[in-house]
């Protein structure tokens, strides 16, 4: 938080500051959790979490000890995608998981896909 009376950041500009303070979260973040967004737990499930968090959240945390997509989590928990996204939103709020949006299929990505499939 800024104490010097200015509401903007010289280096980054005014819009970046609330973004940085929330660690990338916004109120509409669930709209950004695409079907293929990747999610990973920020640590192992602790004993405290195992007793204090809802069962579904614990299940998700166990499932994302390695990165998994929203779709894979939804399939693993046998929950609709929309419900899975809400649960993931809770875990993001609690700062227990990290997530990454899909990449735009630009020239570099498409060339990687072509080479990758050829080498299968």
């Amino acid at each position, binding site marked *: 938080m800024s104490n010097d009376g200015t509401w903007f950041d010289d280096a980054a500009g005014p819009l970046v500051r609330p973004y940085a303070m929330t660690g*990338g979260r916004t109120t509409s973040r669930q709209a950004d959790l695409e079907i293929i967004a*990747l999610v*990973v737990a920020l640590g192992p499930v602790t004993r405290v979490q195992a007793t204090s968090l809802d069962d579904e959240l614990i299940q998700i945390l166990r499932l994302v000890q390695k990165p998994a997509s929203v*779709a894979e989590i939804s399939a693993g928990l046998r929950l609709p995608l929309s419900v899975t996204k809400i649960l993931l939103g809770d875990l993001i709020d609690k700062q227990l998981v990290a*997530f*990454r949006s899909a990449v735009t299929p630009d020239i570099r990505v498409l060339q990687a896909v072509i080479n990758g499939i050829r080498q299968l």
Partner: protein
Amino acid sequence: MAFDNSEPVLRGSSVKLLVAGGFGVGKTTMVGTISEIPPLRTEEVITEMSRGVDDLAGVESKTTTTVALDFGRITISPELVLYLFGTPGQDRFWFMWDELADGALGAVILADTRRLGSSFPAIDYFESRGVPFVIGVNCFDDGAVHEVEEVRDALDLDTWVPIVMCDVRDRASCKQVLVTLAEHALTMVTAGAR
């Protein structure tokens, strides 16, 4: 637009493509043939808002449908995972599911020569959204043998749309279809068509 809170724990990122076409044309088979994991299934509840034309009060009614999707995964590199989604064949509701096509690198539209018309809805959809697509003609054993240009005429496709004869049970054949799609998408991106 895209943001995340993943630095630096998540190095990889993801991209997707769709496998579309009519019911029973081989979408799930293709996903299963090329995926590195057995195909998984997920579902979404789609809500359609409709307004009665006679209704002067303009009251909207909601119709909800559950749409199931099969999907698979190919690890392209340590930094990139490709997801393949087989669209639900029978259900018109997936056409309202814009999130599915948003950001996709492209779509494979499978066609069955015994009933080519079942591919029309998917062709219309991806054409109208400007999503690059290729036609994979799944050559069933008892299907009539067609020439590529016959299929192009029958489906009323532009000359630049690639058409590939394939067998979705065969891995090499699926690879060829996917490479053709990615190359076609690359051509379109390079030409600034998207």
